[in-house]
């Protein structure tokens, strides 16, 4: 016969199991192994070399750290600076696709943003309708981009935000999308990002006449040094492969589109770069370069030089 204490005991065990499942990774793994399993695996695909560039970059300082960024923070930034909004980012992204993949990408871009994939409609009919970027703009852009001139493309891309033609074309649908985009206050995503920022100098422009030894002061002066710049900044999926993740989802509420998640990730990276600069990455890059040259000279037997100084 079932007594109240049995029911109470059963409920208590159920509650304990629920608490364990929510709070304990090990218990979740045990449950998943026995009752339910979910495995993600990659099919083998080729790794293609897209570009090989000869460079001469000298990395003299590295910064690693972790930051947090959220969807709400991104929205606040978007309100302050509409140029960072999701829609403009997307339009600029489509220009890059146009350059790389020409008409195939243009058609897929229209399909994506007009959400027509479920309807059988001819592309040319929709090209004339009101859309995110009007057909006339695309015609002009195509003429420019078909020159295969990377500098022209870069100019269009970098100045698109300030181009009256571009802004006029996207102004009405932009305002509509931004109103929709900035809504839904319950939606939030918080990401923790861990990454690296590496700074240094480009050595392309260095020549012999920039090196000058001041014998009186035992100093080597290298004039015309370029400013240190950020050579690489990244937050990868892994910070330490197989041990520490680069991105951790701290909190998420409501569904997010891939572009929205991307914006939060980019926000993490920008914040990490800012932290690196505030910590004095560029100053460290400068000092480290001077110390490295001095160390190298001493290894090569130049004991007369005691100080190395860079001059911009």
């Amino acid at each position, binding site marked *: 016969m079932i007594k109240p204490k049995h029911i109470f*005991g059963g409920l*208590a065990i159920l509650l*304990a199991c629920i*608490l*364990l499942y929510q709070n*304990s990774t090990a218990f979740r793994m045990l449950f998943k192994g*026995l*009752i*339910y*399993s*979910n495995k*993600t*695996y*990659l099919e*083998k*695909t*080729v*790794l*293609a*070399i*897209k570009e090989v*560039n*000869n*460079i*001469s*970059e*000298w*990395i*003299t300082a*590295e*910064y*690693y*750290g972790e930051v947090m960024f959220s969807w709400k923070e991104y929205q606040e930034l978007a309100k302050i600076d509409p140029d960072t909004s999701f829609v403009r980012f997307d339009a600029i992204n489509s220009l890059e696709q146009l350059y790389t993949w020409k008409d195939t990408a243009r058609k*897929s871009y229209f399909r994506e943003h007009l959400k027509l*994939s479920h309807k059988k409609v001819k592309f040319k009919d929709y090209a004339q309708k009101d859309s995110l970027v009007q057909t006339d703009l695309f015609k002009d852009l195509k003429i420019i981009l078909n020159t295969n001139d990377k500098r022209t493309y870069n100019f269009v891309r970098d100045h698109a935000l300030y181009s009256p033609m571009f802004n006029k074309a996207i102004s009405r649908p932009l305002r509509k999308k931004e109103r929709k985009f900035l809504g839904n206050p319950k939606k939030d*995503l918080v990401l923790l990002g*861990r990454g690296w920022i590496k700074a240094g100098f480009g050595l392309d422009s260095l020549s012999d006449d920039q*090196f000058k030894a001041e014998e009186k002061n035992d100093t080597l002066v290298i004039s015309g040094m370029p400013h240190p710049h950020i*050579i690489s900044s*990244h937050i*990868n*999926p892994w910070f330490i*492969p197989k041990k520490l*993740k680069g*991105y951790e*989802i701290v909190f*998420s509420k409501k569904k997010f589109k*891939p572009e929205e*998640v*991307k914006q939060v*990730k*980019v926000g993490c990276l920008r914040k990490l770069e800012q932290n690196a600069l505030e910590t004095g990455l560029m100053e*460290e890059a400068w000092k*480290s370069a001077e*110390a*490295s040259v001095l*160390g*190298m000279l001493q*290894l090569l*037997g130049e004991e007369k030089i005691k100080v190395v100084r860079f001059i911009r």
Partner: protein
Amino acid sequence: MQPNRLLGIIFLFCMALSACQAPSLDISKVKAVSKLASLEVKLDKMLFAQNQSKVLPFLFGGINLNKAPFIAYTEASILIGIDMDKLRGQDIDISGAKISLTLPPVELLDFSYPAEKFREDDIYVTAKDTWSMHQKEQVYQLGELEIREMIPYLGMEEKAQENIIMLLTPVLRGMGFENIEINFQEDKDSDFLKREESIEALREMITG
């Protein structure tokens, strides 16, 4: 067993299993380095992932629930060069106007797999909404590991070495050396250099 005793055991079990915590960084840090990057390689990788769900997996392999594909186009960028901090006095031999340098082995200096270059496919795969953010993140993590495993087989070592020689030779000539000899150490423990095994291992990796 009495319910109170059982509850007590479960409670202790709870505490023990909750003890595991993910590692985290305690500090951020700026550090001085001296690394010469002579080659930048940009790589394209298409990620084709499958998600296999099963119920009662211990029972004759389990009952398959669904199998949804996910495709994403990604780009990675690597910098290859040498770490000048590893250069020691015994690696440099100077006699008059002749210098003989044995530089540290070429290595992977930087690996970048930026999220802003990830592009999910929506032409070939229409059921991508079944993938959660966590699962997609897992796919990108697997993608990074796969790319890292394949980097040693790209065969970029010689090109990187040539570039470094071309970069350092004018500098040494400027210092008055007329006869310049530059060699590279071979680091047999390094994963980066797999010349001899490259073709066979690559074939095995692709066919599985």
